[in-house]
């Protein structure tokens, strides 16, 4: 029962990632991220079942609130300020992104099968799922032009790692996990501010213009 629930949630997560890869509407992406945060909160409850209930509650609540509510709010504010709606002309097109996503999924699954995983891991799908999210996060950062997309990619990467964490680690004091969450929060907060500044400085948030500092001979 628990196993099935976990599997379902992981599959949902994977689907959100694929959607992130395939969509050009930044607003939609932010919503997807919010949904991921929510899913992760729920997953935390399932994955950490044997642990301390207070700990589980704090963790779940923390991730839901931060990842599901605060980050999306911050990001959509930045989006509103920036007057950008879509990711136009990414380095890797959306179709190709989806294909790459499929390939990454395959790699993640095969890698997950080869690594000697600890038994305590709830489901065999969790670890490949987490790896997949990390890949997708990297992919988004590398292939998208707008600064906002990169923050989104970073969040996906962070979510993947977080998923790894809640799956792998059980008997850890809560302080660190909260510290992690807080840190990510501050990171996103400052990135949001930066996006605001970038928008003000350059009129739009494409990082193409953030490429003046270089050592290539003209």
């Amino acid at each position: 029962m628990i196993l099935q629930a976990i599997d379902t949630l992981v599959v949902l997560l994977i689907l959100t990632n694929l959607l992130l890869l395939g969509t050009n509407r930044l607003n939609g992406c932010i919503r997807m991220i919010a949904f991921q945060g929510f899913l992760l909160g729920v997953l935390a409850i399932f994955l950490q079942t044997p642990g301390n209930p207070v700990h589980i509650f704090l963790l779940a609540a923390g991730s839901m609130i931060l990842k599901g509510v605060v980050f999306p709010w911050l990001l959509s504010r930045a989006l509103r300020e920036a007057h950008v709606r879509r990711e136009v002309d990414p380095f890797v097109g959306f179709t190709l992104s989806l294909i790459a996503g499929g390939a990454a999924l395959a790699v993640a699954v095969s890698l997950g099968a080869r690594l000697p995983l600890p038994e305590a891991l709830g489901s065999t799908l969790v670890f490949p799922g987490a790896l997949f999210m990390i890949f997708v996060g990297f992919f988004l950062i590398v292939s998208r032009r707008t600064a906002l997309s990169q923050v989104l990619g970073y969040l996906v990467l962070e979510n993947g790692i977080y998923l790894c964490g809640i799956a792998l680690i059980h008997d850890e004091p809560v302080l660190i996990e909260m510290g992690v969450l807080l840190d990510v929060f501050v990171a996103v907060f400052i990135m949001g501010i930066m996006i605001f500044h970038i928008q003000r400085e350059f009129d739009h948030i494409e990082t193409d213009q953030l490429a003046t500092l270089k050592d290539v001979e003209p």
Partner: protein
Amino acid sequence: MLALFGFPFWGGCTAFLLRTDRSRRILLLACAILHLFLTMAAWKVQLRPELNGWLALDTLGLLFLTLISLLFMAAALYAVGYLRRESHGRIKDFEEGVLFSNEPEAVFIGCLLFFLGTMTLVTLSQRFGLLWVAIEATTLSSAPLIYFHRHHRSLEAAWKYLLICSVGIALALLGSFFLVVAAQGTGGRTLIVQDMVQHAAHLRGPWLKAAFLLLLIGYGTKMGLAPLHTWLPDAHSEAPSVVSALLSGALLNCAFLGILRVVQVCVAAGLLSFVQGLLTGFGLLSMGVAAVFIVGQADYKRMLAYSSVEHMGIMALGVGLGGAGIFGALLQAVNHSLAKAMLFLTAGNILGVYKTKTVSGVRGALRVLPVSGALWVAGFLMITGSPPFGLFPSEFAILKAALDGGHGGVAAAYLLSLALIFIGMAGIFLRMAQGEAPSPRCPEPWWSILPPLLLGLGVLVLGLYVPPFLTAALQTISRTLGAP
């Protein structure tokens, strides 16, 4: 010990609350002095571990803490004068002529103090999780410092710094998780460095290896090992010089400390050759990449930044070579911190007068700024490892480690990189320092001279005399890192 990292945070908060610039500057100086005082006291008094062993000050931490504290003292002195000079209103950018304004001073000083606090925390934390949090916090607290001059180039630098380091640090987080997995069921408290070292024999090898890789890449991004160094030249060149000095001299060492902590565990677990191979490879690659960009570099602050990449490579190489190389690497860390901070502060003086960061725009610095010019030339000799300065013994020790270990190829590559970098730097530094003065001699206020002068004297002294307590400390540390 709590005071040691607690009061900078308190000071940082206060800085936001204070009304006048003057009181904030006094606060900055007071915090720097107090921090230095406490650090010195820590050499005398053995501090007990706090917070269930999460915080403790071992010799390694103390060494790096001392460096941070000394550098911060110098930087604070410099910053007070610097902030007084930087005017408040709109400033004309000397490169592109656009107007920009500076960050509010409250933010700057507050972030400086936060930065100090987080770096202190890095040296104190004995738990990998906390270490991760602290290192990530240093990124966050220093990003606004890089964006002091609010124009688009420093924004770009800050953005790259933030994004790349965050990505790296995310991998380090994953590495920390793997470390937990590796340590599960071994007994002892997981993730506490000391306990992991004690029970290292039971750690799970593959997980530990994976964890080391991830942490090396994660913290290596922050430390500036090639090819993960890409943020470093941008951030160092665009930040105010005083911040660059802290970034290069203190922050990079913090990341190095993070790697050393993992190395301690891996060495205890018998992964010595695995660790050493990786570090040697990264070290040589960093030196080579630094050579590529130093030769013919047109921007002297970027040149200094690449030189940091080089020196981080040398340190990694030293640790990777093992034996006496570790001692050399640690001594290198000490000397590099002092020398590089001194160079960045001097570069700040030159930048202030010549209003350009391009090498070709600076001529006759020895005549226009006699003291800074002399420091600039001396700094060149320091950073290239010429006797009688402190980087000579350390680089020599690393060379000896390489040849004693029979790594002739490594030694040759090491010497070749050093030679290339020397040639590249000789052109840049001498071109700037010598020649006819384009303008009459400029006055040099004491605050701009004294900090680099003292740092430079430190490097000179270390080149002629390594105090016994330092030798003892370095030997203690190198034993924990696998030296016989």
